[in-house]
């Protein structure tokens, strides 16, 4: 697969998923392009993880379709991974599942993920941060075109999470891969993103972080308190500002931007 900017890696068209009678995702249309960092934010139960599970093939959509570019390699960092203490597993062995990789390739991926010293360690004895870096290394082994992270910083403290996202940006710069992540760490994660998608069963709004932070739909979901924090954690990197801020169809929120909102006062 040849890669240049604006190469479409994955196109999601009118995706819908329901568990029993309960719709979890509806009318999701989304295009992921090479080299772009996209963040999906949304409250609990908004379908974020389900969306990612559809992308890696773990969840079959009830409607719509997902088309990947031919030969697309996806690296996946799961939300959390419990390794039973009865399973003896070194980091090196873990990286060789399900297919063997050379020691050199394993060490290179570990170095890139900032976990170079963990090669021979037992998985069950790693700290949360070390574990997360090993998971990242595993996802990088295939030199992915698209790196997918599901709440990858759960269990890390704020400096740990910030360092992890800086590492992701560095990986993106080195490998040129696109990144799609889901997170609760709104402030930190949004600062590192090219594009933010605000999800609540459907796509409420999307655009550059600043635009989304200003959007009524976003503030209705997360309150206004995030704005200041976003500015606080903002750090310099090259953003592309050519995204349009688009309202999703069927958005349940009030679209009158001049209208004062009660929920802002409640924050």
């Amino acid at each position, binding site marked *: 697969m040849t890669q240049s900017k604006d190469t479409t890696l994955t196109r999601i068209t009118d995706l819908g998923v329901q568990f029993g009678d309960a719709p979890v995702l509806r009318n999701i249309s989304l295009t992921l392009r090479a080299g772009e960092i996209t963040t999906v934010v949304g409250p609990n139960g908004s379908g974020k993880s389900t969306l990612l599970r559809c992308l890696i093939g773990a969840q079959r959509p009830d409607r719509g379709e997902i088309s990947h570019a031919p030969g697309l390699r996806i690296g996946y960092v799961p939300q959390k991974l419990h390794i039973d203490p009865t*399973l003896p597993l070194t980091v090196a*062995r873990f990286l060789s*599942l399900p297919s063997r990789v050379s020691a050199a390739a394993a060490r290179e991926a570990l170095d890139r993920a900032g976990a170079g010293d963990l090669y021979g360690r037992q998985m069950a004895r790693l700290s949360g941060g070390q574990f997360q870096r090993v998971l990242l290394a595993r996802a990088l082994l295939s030199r992915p075109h698209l790196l997918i992270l599901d709440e990858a910083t759960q269990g890390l403290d704020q400096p740990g999470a910030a360092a992890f996202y800086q590492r992701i940006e560095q990986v993106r710069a080195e490998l040129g891969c696109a990144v799609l992540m889901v997170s609760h760490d709104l402030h930190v994660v949004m600062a590192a993103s090219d594009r933010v998608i605000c999800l609540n069963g459907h796509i409420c709004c999307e655009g550059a972080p600043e635009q989304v932070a200003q959007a009524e739909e976003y503030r209705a979901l997360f309150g206004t308190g995030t704005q200041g924090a976003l500015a606080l954690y903002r750090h310099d990197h090259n953003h592309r500002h050519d995204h349009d801020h688009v309202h999703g169809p069927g958005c349940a929120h009030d679209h009158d931007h001049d209208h004062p909102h009660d929920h802002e006062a409640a924050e």
Partner: protein
Amino acid sequence: MSLLDDFLIRAALAAVGVALAAAPLGCFVVWRRMAYFGDATSHAAILGVALSLALSLPIFAGALAVALIMAVAITMLSQRGHAMDTLLGVMAHSALAVGLVAVSFLDGVRIDLMAYLFGEILAVSRLDLLVIWTGAALVLALLSWRWSALLTATLNTDLAHAAGVNPAREQAVLTLALALVVAVAIKVVGVLLIAALLIIPAATARPLATTPERMAVAAAAIGALSGLAGLGLSYHYDTPAGPTIVCVAAGLFLLSTLLRGRLMTRG
């Protein structure tokens, strides 16, 4: 003397065959926390024994069929959201009870129930040996063929999906292997003690191993040793063979646990 040697050798071969297949499979049972799954499947086998006798089928065939049906039923019910431990408690004991009642309906067939509950290793025939070693070879072949995929699916189902491994298929492989082991082991250790041969060697091997492969090999060795030593002791002291084998395995478990404690305090 030669006759005596002969039945002891057959018994030893049977014990080693069962141990070699049961122990590596038992590692997965331990890693995936499905100890009761093994129990339920083996308890169901007594119903298979009753059906085989009623229909004049080979014991092996009836036990395999019912164990397989049981394992599949449990897997399907647990996917529908029933709590696994409750489900297994219900199924295991119901299956055993139904089996025992079914046996009592058999007219004109005088069967020694104790032989199926606790095994009758000293009465193993050449044909039994053939069945045991064919079954064991099948299970080992199945496990080594699917080894990496099984391990990946054991770690995390989403991770497996992302790596192109179908966790449902790997679960089916384990279910099939479990039913096979139960069916071939009935004659050796009996329905009540099969789960012991699955779990105790694996648990004993855990402190001695640093990788999953070493744990499986160590478990197989420990299982075989328990089988041989148990047979020897049972012959010498005239104790029931199946339970004696399990007693030796339990003793080895105790040793390895103490050894681990010593290593931990020293290190």
